[in-house]
């Protein structure tokens, strides 16, 4: 089902990121990678929230570009996406947000493939249709989306409904513009699939801590340890996500070999609480910053020291 596309593309097993900023963010110790949906609950508020995450110690920030059918998300992030869409978020506003937000860490766009596929840089979806189905034309589809993302200052992409088998057009566009394309490795990913994915991934690999959808959980699955084990031969940075909600969990995951932690739902929960309880933007931002610090500190505590073989 892969289109015979085992072209001898450069093996990326050396973790050579296309985007040097992301590589740098993982180079000096464990990376804390928070996620928020852009526009949740409004453009201005989410700008303050993302800036708070950076102050709290984020090394890379994943920015969600909301799609109406987020099949990989649990109820928490679904809620964020609904609020963002109701607040009027669009791909173009998202890129304006990226240009405007005042942070100096690399930004990764997390979205679903249809928004990339439909993207047209002249705002005209007719143009995309007229120019052919594969989105190869420069002003439409993956090429246009990645060009605009790069221009706005995005360093990488995560697309949860785009498996490696279908990713070649996007991979090519990312290569052209120096963006990383991050793939998700699930607990069920092994053998040849893992190999082919690890050959195509760049920036970091998103290690899905457990089966299911996103959502904060109090236990961190031992599926994580097994996944980290399977990946230990590859030196592309491994960032673990899905379910992490506390500094202790962050510490434990980094201690068991992760190069970074990705946290979404535990932060979105704070945004949702702010909406439900009518907190001011500043109040919510303060709580987000505190949570970010807790998670970043936890990750730093878990960094294994060279001398001990700590568990």
């Amino acid at each position, binding site marked *: *089902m892969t*289109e015979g596309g085992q072209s001898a593309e450069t093996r990326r097993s050396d973790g050579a990121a296309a985007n040097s900023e992301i590589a740098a963010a993982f180079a000096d110790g464990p990376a804390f990678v928070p996620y928020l949906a852009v526009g949740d609950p409004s453009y201005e508020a989410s700008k303050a929230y993302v800036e708070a995450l950076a102050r709290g110690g984020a090394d890379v920030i994943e920015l969600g570009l909301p*799609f*109406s*059918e*987020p*099949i*990989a*998300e*649990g109820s928490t992030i*679904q809620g964020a996406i*609904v609020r963002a*869409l109701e607040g009027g978020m*669009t*791909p173009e506003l998202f890129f304006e947000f990226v240009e405007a937000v005042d942070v100096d860490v690399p930004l990764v766009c997390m979205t*679903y*493939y*249809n*928004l*990339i*596929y*439909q*993207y*047209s840089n002249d*705002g*005209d*979806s007719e143009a995309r*249709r007229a120019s052919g*189905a*594969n989105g190869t034309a420069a002003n439409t589809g993956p090429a246009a989306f990645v060009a605009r993302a790069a221009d706005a200052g995005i360093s990488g992409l995560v697309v*949860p*409904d*785009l*498996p490696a*088998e*279908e990713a070649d057009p996007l991979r090519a566009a990312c290569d052209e513009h120096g963006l990383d394309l991050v*793939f*998700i*490795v*699930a*607990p*069920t*990913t*092994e053998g040849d*699939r893992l190999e082919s*994915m690890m050959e195509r991934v760049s920036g970091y690999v998103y290690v*899905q801590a457990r*089966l*299911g*959808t996103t959502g904060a959980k109090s236990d961190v699955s031992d599926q994580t340890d097994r996944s980290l084990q399977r990946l230990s031969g590859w030196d592309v940075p491994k960032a673990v996500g899905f379910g992490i909600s506390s500094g202790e969990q962050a510490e434990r995951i980094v201690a068991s070999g992760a190069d970074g932690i990705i946290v979404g739902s535990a932060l979105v929960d704070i945004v949702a609480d702010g909406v439900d309880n009518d907190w001011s933007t500043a109040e919510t931002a303060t709580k987000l910053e505190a949570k970010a610090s807790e998670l970043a500190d936890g990750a730093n505590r878990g960094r294994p020291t060279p001398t001990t073989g700590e568990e």
Partner: protein
Amino acid sequence: MSTDHATDAADSHTQAADGKFGDYGGQYVPEALMPAIQELTDAYERYVVNNEDGFMDEFRQRLADFGGRPTPLQRADRLSERYDCELYLKREDLLHGGAHKLNNALGQVLLAKYMGKDRIIAETGAGQHGTATAMAAAHLDMPCTIYMGERDINRQRPNVFRMKLNGSDVKPVTAGRGTLKEAISETMRDWAASVETTHYVIGSIVGPHPFPVMVRDFHSVISEEIRTQTREQTGGLPDAVVACAGGGSNTMGAFAHFIDDDGAERSSAKNQSGDEPRGRVDLVAVEAGGSSLAVDEEEGVAPNSASLSTGDEGVLHGARTKLLQDSFGQIMESHSISSGLDYAGVGPELAHLVDEDRVTPVAVDDDAALEGFHRLSNTEGIIPALETAHAFGYLEEHADELSGTVVVNVSGRGDKDLQAAIEETEARDVPNAPDMSMFSGGI
């Protein structure tokens, strides 16, 4: 028994071994599901395509014993006269459960058993696929959970009860407008967490490969029987096959064995005894035109479900296909008087066949569908599902295009829709409806 369908000359329709129909199809799913989808592809090829361990024989036997196949092909005398053609009804409404859905549900639940899975999940819109899956799961002794949009639960109470009677757990889905689209997304989320033990019985020819080809193959018994039965009853093949299309499973089931047929046996070709080429059997997919084919971009609402006629290419629920979406690629809320057609996407194979001009898409609006519902009921004594009623709306609106032998797939019966039909008939001015005065105040 399974070999008859494999050796029928017209069985060479698009096989799509790689899951692509032109540019449509594919496997756009979260990574966690990929191993399961590959396992399913393997099982599909072994058991369904190659009849390993006699899978297809057991499937056909159960369709006969439990399902009641073959379903009749019946001449519709009054409608034949009305439209001046030979009109035949393929009575899938007489399949156990009251709709074509059991063909697929029984096939997939049985396949799950062969694969060693121990739990079934499914989404449902009208509740027809849910009830069929619940019946099949009970019949084959598998635990089953069904996701259903909250709004659909309210529109389809009796079907919810039927699922529960058969021992299934019904979970309401509150996201979005609470219809089929949201139910599919939610079932995919369950599957992402349970994939190692659970099989997802998808309800139409949608979703990632191998679902579109597999669901089509389970339903293709419909067109296989139509071929045999029209030959027996008319001495030839039909000139046209008409079916409603939501995702398009009854549609592809009724079309499958005609796709590559050269049309030489068409009834009118024989009758005319001339050698002018008649062309292939006409295949008409009737979509829900809803209240209007226009689209409200601001609100993100398409008041129809006509993705074949009006949709654009995009990626939804694991496949590239024709979709109702706004110019940014956000999926629109669709609408139809019938919940089973109320979906923003359509099967990738059907989208491809429309682009290839092999299948003609036609939209029929809510009013015409409701009139079709009443017409079949009061002329032929058959109360169709509101989904099916769209096909009868087509006959009325395109009467002058009908000739020779026309087969309509009666995909389901209307018992599930009676409450909705009372309300919709009272709310609209339906010329061929019975006197509704005794229903005012409810039944």
